[in-house]
């Protein structure tokens, strides 16, 4: 047993987090910053922060993840990190020459209260930021929120620093994709393009963190939203933000700053959430939905109809980030599966928990939800009453193995499989992939557990 000290006896805990279902803000900010073309993310803290974040992102993507650090020592922690950041900015533009440095703070620099706008301003007046180059920042104290909050904050910083209204509206829709995979971002753009809609996606990590093997390393890969595009977001006809927790803040900030109306939707995971996304695109851009998209939708529905018997009534445990959990729960309910246990480590609030309750109101039996919760509690629920399927990040595999439960990897981080960066789970095609994954997990188990007599050829 891998988690042999976990028992079914649940004791109240108010201080100790065991097997967390979240990590800290800065890694989300780093991931978002990688979605700007020519950007070098910068961690304003000690070296350990950026080393850990780069390592975690690298393991998840199996791609180069580049970032810099202010490399705080004890002295910097006492006297402030200004000297370090100024030196860092100077060195980065001299040696690596990015288009933009995106600085995020850490618990260290937040606790000592470094004033980032003041330091960046000083760098500019001292001529450390070359003409046409940018340094942007966001505050990401690790002791508030989670990695999702960090992503949200850096995405919002893109609006705060760059978005501007140039006097007339362009027929362009802004897409804020949420803390999703590069493959998902690509798929959202593909769907919009299929409808003939011009979009600006920010951040956009496609072609950054799912790049090709070419024999030539590019420190700043082809992908990412450009500064020019970010400036133009203020003149778009509207913004669609996918996932309120990761994308809502930036969309609202853009509305306030440049009067770009926004619609905040669920992540387009599953049939209905994708319907809502497509429908919103249609209304905002005033276009018709092409047959090619109707066809994809029909294919997805076809799988649901053909294989409904295998989904029906299956109990599912979900661990992940709030935007993902919410969309997945709706999707599972829509195909008559039963999300009975749901945990996110992100402090997503009472309203979020209430939404999950409403989504699962028709699910028979007790539905357990903990916001914020951890995987230790989640595992204890399973010890008390098992489920048929687990969906979560790689750490869930320890529970899956101990309890012998089929398991699908979804979310962050996935450290032991590839695919997530190349194949989406959003949109109708992504939905088909998700359905395939669910079916494979359930039917492989059925095959494994069937007696010789019951073993089926056709399923």
């Amino acid at each position: 047993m891998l988690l042999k000290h976990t028992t079914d006896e649940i004791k109240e805990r108010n201080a100790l987090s065991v097997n967390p279902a979240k990590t800290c803000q800065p890694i989300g900010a780093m991931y978002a910053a990688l979605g700007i073309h020519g950007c070098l993310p910068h961690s304003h803290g000690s070296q350990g922060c950026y080393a850990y974040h780069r390592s975690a992102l690298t393991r998840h993507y199996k791609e180069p993840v580049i970032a810099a650090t202010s490399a705080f020592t004890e002295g910097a922690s006492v006297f402030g990190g200004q000297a370090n950041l100024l030196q860092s900015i100077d060195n980065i533009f001299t040696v690596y020459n990015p288009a933009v440095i995106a600085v995020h703070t850490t618990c260290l620099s937040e606790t000592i209260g470094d004033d980032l706008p003041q330091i960046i301003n000083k760098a500019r007046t001292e001529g450390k930021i070359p003409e046409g180059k940018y340094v942007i920042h966001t505050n990401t104290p690790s002791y508030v929120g989670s990695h999702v909050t960090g992503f949200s904050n850096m995405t919002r910083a893109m609006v705060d620093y760059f978005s501007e209204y140039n006097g007339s509206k362009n027929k362009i829709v802004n897409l804020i994709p949420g803390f999703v995979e590069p493959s998902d971002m690509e798929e959202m753009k593909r769907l919009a393009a299929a409808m003939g809609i011009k979009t600006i996606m920010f951040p956009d990590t496609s072609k950054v963190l799912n790049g090709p093997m070419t024999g030539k390393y590019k420190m700043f890969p082809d992908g990412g939203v450009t500064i020019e595009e970010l400036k133009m977001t203020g003149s778009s006809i509207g913004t669609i933000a996918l996932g309120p927790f990761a994308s809502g803040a930036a969309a609202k900030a853009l509305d306030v700053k440049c009067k770009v109306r926004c619609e905040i939707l669920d992540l387009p995971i599953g049939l209905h959430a994708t319907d809502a996304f497509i429908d919103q695109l249609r209304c905002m851009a005033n276009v018709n939905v092409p047959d090619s998209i109707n066809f994809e939708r029909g294919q997805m529905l076809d799988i649901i109809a053909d294989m409904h018997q295998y989904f029906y009534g299956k109990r599912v445990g979900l661990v992940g980030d709030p935007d993902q959990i919410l969309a997945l729960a709706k999707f599972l309910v829509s195909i008559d599966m039963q999300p009975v246990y749901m945990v996110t480590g992100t402090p997503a609030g009472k309203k979020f928990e209430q939404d999950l309750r409403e989504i699962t109101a028709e699910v028979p039996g007790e539905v357990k939800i903990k916001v914020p919760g951890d995987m230790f509690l989640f595992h204890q629920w399973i010890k008390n009453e098992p489920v048929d399927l687990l969906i979560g990040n790689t750490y869930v595999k320890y529970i899956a193995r101990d309890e012998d439960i089929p398991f699908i990897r979804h979310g962050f981080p996935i450290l032991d499989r590839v695919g997530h960066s190349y194949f989406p789970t959003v949109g109708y095609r992504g939905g088909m992939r998700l359905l395939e994954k669910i079916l494979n997990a359930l039917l492989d188990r059925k095959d494994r557990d069937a007696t010789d007599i019951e073993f089926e050829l056709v399923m």
Partner: protein
Amino acid sequence: MALPEENNKFEPDEYNPEEMKEEMLLQYPPKVARKRAKQIVINKFGSDGEVGDISPNVRTVPGLIGQRGCCYAGCKGVVLGPTRDIINITHGPIGCGFYSWLTRRNQTDASTTPDNHNFMTYCFSTDMQDEQIIFGGEKKLALAIQEAYDNFHPKAIAVFSTCPVGLIGDDIHTVCRNMKEKLGINVFGFSCEGYKGVSQSAGHHIANNGIFTHVVGTDDTEHDGKYKINLLGEYNIGGDAFEIERIFNKCGITQVSSFSGNSSIDKFANAHVADLNLIMCHRSINYVAEMMETKYGLPWIKINFIGANATAKSLRKIAQYFGDEELIAKVEEVIAEEMPAVKQSIEEVRPRTEGKRAMLFVGGSRAHHYQELFAELGMKTLSAGYEFAHRDDYEGRRVLPDIKVDADSRNIEELDVKPDPLKYNPRKSEAEIAKLAEAGLKMSEYEGMMPDMDSGSMVIDDISQRESELLIESFKPDIYCAGIKEKYTVQKNGIPMKQLHSYDYGGPYAGFKGAVNFYNEIDRMVNSKIWKYLKAPWQAHPELAAAYASD
């Protein structure tokens, strides 16, 4: 010590280290260039074999993009992480605990301790919130320790401070002391805030101090078994420690404890009853060995089980120390038994690896140790450097008296250790130690990496991303070794990259069987055909085919 030999001089075509160094420095602002110049050294030997000096263990230049982690990573992640039966609570925001959760591949076998405890698959954190940053986190920490006890009933709990803890002034040591008294189990803390020191290295030292102060020497149980040793600085990545234990068992050597691969806190407590400390990773663990020698009279020698020849040599050193004919004979017997399989593998692989060129930038000992394995494959180490080592790891311990203690190192406590009035027992007399030295076995000696490297090879401390890119572009090594952060950056250039922290999820590479695993792995990597697929047919032959032209 390797003396300068003409035939050791390394001069492949197009390899001009001086030019390369100049190119590396040219890209930096002058102040940075001056600093880096002292960390990029072309290896050369003086008249009595001494190597040129290098300035490691200094602050990383902000903005340069390097490999280093922090003090917490060295303390909780590296040294204490592999101990399975301590509940390690990270006191801080959630990130640090999360990132150090199972990511270092320390294997462990809980069936070897009677209680079967294994908490390494768990992550424990106080998940500090802004409320604690403002009002202090001591209460939450005390409650977290209580909850850990109530839920898991461990025999020990350790607490690790992250950056904000030191800044807000939580006194974790008092909390630990109080909880120790209350719960009746060992509870101890490490002030290993990430900003301390200049790299992971500070954390190693703090971990050594803590484990020595709170655990070592608390259990005096004597064991049966001959030739009692402790294995220090071996972390059982990919099962290395299991292979080393297999060899020890075969030789009849009794391993009392391991710091800290496949380890149990009970074994730390009892470590002082051994008769010899063996140091594998000098950088991360030499402090414990030094302190055990002072307090208990337990001497140490440097050994290396990476490389078949190095393994054989290390076993002979152990036998020589104990000086027992039976052990000397047994060690020779084991080497004779194990070597044929190794030789057979080398004979098979070496024709395909001979003359290939490697670069190693990793850790505080691996960049040195793994050169042994490459040498056994007939491969040259073109350039190497450590991530967080000190001068003694590069140039040997003879430079220790010359090392200036700077502000960053001074902040790491040096324990004042004295001989234990009851337990101090020098295992060898001074005369015996002198006699062993005369016969070639020097106690407390590590000669460092540079004396083992060829003249003309490049030694680069705390290498930066840009320097690494320049090396790769210009010298096109056949293999490059570092860690996960460098892995895909290197491979995008079409150069195979071997992770020497995680072993790319392979291993073991220690001992005799590990050596064979490594030979096969390197053969696979440097001779792989996949790097020849970079060009599509139409890129290789772009001429238009006219045969199918339409109207």
